[in-house]
């Protein structure tokens, strides 16, 4: 699966995209822990395959091979 990082997250982790092998039953929370090395940010926006998902559901969302997860900082436009 592929995790895409945007704005501040991309700069902090030094990559715009990370490819990860997917463990059986891996949840969105597991993936964020891996990408952010055990210290995921408190707030973020998440999209799976181009659809935004709510922040509260992370440990319930199971991912499958081929999923693309966009991890974005909270909006700060305007």
């Amino acid at each position, binding site marked *: 699966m592929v995790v895409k990082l945007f*704005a501040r997250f991309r700069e902090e982790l030094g990559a715009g995209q990370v490819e990860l092998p997917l463990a059986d039953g891996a949840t969105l929370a597991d993936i964020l822990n891996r990408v952010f090395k055990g210290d995921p940010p408190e707030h973020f926006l998440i999209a799976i395959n*181009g659809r935004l998902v709510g922040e509260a559901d992370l440990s319930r969302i199971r991912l499958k091979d081929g999923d693309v997860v966009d991890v*974005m900082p*909270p*909006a*700060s*436009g305007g």
Partner: protein
Amino acid sequence: MRVRLAERLSKVSDVVEELKRASDNVGAICVFLGVVRATSAGERVLRLEYEAHPALAEEVLLKLLEEAKERHGIIDGVIEHKVGTAHVGETVMYVAVASEHRREGFRALAELVDRVKHEAPIWKKEVLEGGARWVEGELSEREPLIRLRGVLEATVNRDVSARELVEALGLKADEVLVMKDCRVLQLHEGLRKGDLVKIVPVALLTSAGG
């Protein structure tokens, strides 16, 4: 309804003319322009750099406009937002709405500007004299003040829209229905002094099987 992310925004006069053409019933056009300030927390701003999610940002902006139309009864709307480098004094965002009357236009405009800033996947980096930093975004405060657990009956004491009534009670507009004379009101519909209304939690209808 139209949204656009671009390095160069349209001329505001063109946007206004575009909205005037939306309908013969347009009686008010409200426009917000976001402009780059010269200072941020006392430091001189050299420039701002905007980044947006290439697909989701426009999708979210369009959804916000569609929801504003449904909630406030506006006729049409345009949102344009800058991407790339912006300098002091430059316009970086337009939100413009056309409506029949000014009241729903003002309400829709204020809500849209807040929602664009808090919900659209667009990010701003400030390049200041002392260095660069990403602006910390805040999540939108969408949690209602109270959650209604039963049907509320009330008499309205002054002219007000259904939406204003719901918000004055600290409720979330998409979690309740406002009913008058056994009819569900649209949020932009008006109520008169003396009207008897029922405010019904949507969750109550769902749990009751319809």
